[in-house]
């Protein structure tokens, strides 16, 4: 995060040199306050509608370091993680018009982009997303602010639910996400009976699902 700010400053705080006349200067803001989900979703919509570089800078600042960290946790070497995070952020810029805030929050959408790039990287095939590769339609209507709120609120609820999990439940959930091991292997590594791992996951997922399906 600071690296970004440093860069902006090193550049004379005047943003980056841009080749074309009339383009708004892109600056990284000094405001480090954590943007909320609704704001992040609006930033993506702004990129889609106006190719807004300031919005991109803000999103980059928030997500690029998180995506990098996330990919490192999933077992990628540091430099590969950063390369894929960089590619993910470029995809956010290129595919912003496909973002449907009624279907997913900003973090969820960016997570799926990074996940797909990681899967591609690992096996050069987009198997994990074959079902979603149905041709996406370019959206024309601007989604209502209500729709933006819905997916964003769902994200916030999931986040709250994750915090409410017991340590053991959170651990098996994280292991399920960040490692490619089946639960039987996870059980072996933790020295737990498979049934215990399965029931912890089931409880964790049950809580999450109750939250996710409680409102729709």
């Amino acid at each position: 995060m600071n690296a970004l700010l440093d860069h902006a400053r090193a550049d004379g705080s005047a943003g980056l040199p841009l080749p074309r006349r009339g383009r708004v200067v892109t600056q990284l803001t000094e405001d480090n306050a954590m943007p909320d989900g609704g704001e992040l979703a609006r930033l993506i919509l702004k990129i889609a509608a106006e190719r807004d570089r300031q919005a991109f800078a803000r999103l980059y600042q928030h997500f690029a370091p998180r995506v990098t960290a996330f990919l490192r946790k999933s077992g990628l070497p540091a430099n590969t993680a950063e390369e894929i995070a960089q590619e993910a952020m470029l995809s956010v810029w290129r595919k912003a018009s496909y973002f449907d805030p009624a279907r997913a929050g900003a973090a969820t959408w960016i997570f799926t982009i990074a996940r797909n790039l990681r899967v591609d990287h690992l096996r050069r095939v987009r198997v994990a997303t074959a079902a979603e590769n149905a041709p996406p339609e370019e959206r024309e209507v601007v989604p209502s602010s209500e729709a933006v709120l819905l997916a964003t609120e769902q994200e916030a609820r999931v986040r709250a639910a994750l915090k409410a999990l017991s340590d053991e439940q959170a651990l098996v959930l994280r292991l399920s996400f960040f490692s490619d091991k089946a639960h039987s292997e996870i059980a072996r590594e933790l020295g737990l009976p498979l049934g215990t791992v399965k029931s912890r996951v089931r409880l964790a997922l049950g809580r999450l699902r109750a939250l996710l399906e409680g409102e729709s």
Partner: protein
Amino acid sequence: MTIRHHATDETLMRYAAGQLPAGPAMVVATHLAGCPVCRARVAGFEAVGGALLEVTEPVPMAPDAFAAALRVIDAEETAPAIAPLTAAPPSLARRRVPGMLPGGIPLPEPLRACEIGPWRWIGFGVRASAVKLPHDPSARLTLLRVGPGRKLPEHGHFGTEFTQVLVGSFIDGYGRYLPGDLSEMDSQVEHQPVVDPDGECICLAALEGGMRLTGFLGRLIQPFVRL
């Protein structure tokens, strides 16, 4: 189509996390194509991924990373002829699959980019065809075509067997499986599927881990499924 047998939460979560091996992931993708219930669950698990991303402690990027991103964007916008998204490799177009299963049944959407091998008779009413994923020839994925009333060899698994019914139906100790249903058999169980007598059954199957085949037919199949 009412789907009775769904993917387990563990499987859907691993799929959403991008952690399921390519073969099982394709079986699950085929199930998802016809199952709105599981699609909604995957969307929920993707939201879990989003939430985990949000709470991940950030690590700093290289100092010039953002500037590099802007340079890429600039280059793309000044030269829009260079498409930023890579197209499918030409080899895909070369060997187009017919897109049909026996009986004129269209292949499920996710399978259409795959290379489907010829049906090979492996005995006792069972034919099989290897399915190759476009960029992952190592993935083990098989179409199985079993005659009416036929029994598959009794077998257990070291890992999990994922079987999506495409045509016809079979029954095992755990229920009857119709088109659209997904059977997940983990290492704890042994089962012996029997195809219903009114028609042949075509399934897409993948294994995570290995299979323990027992009996004569099992040993026949084993070399074929390369396990």
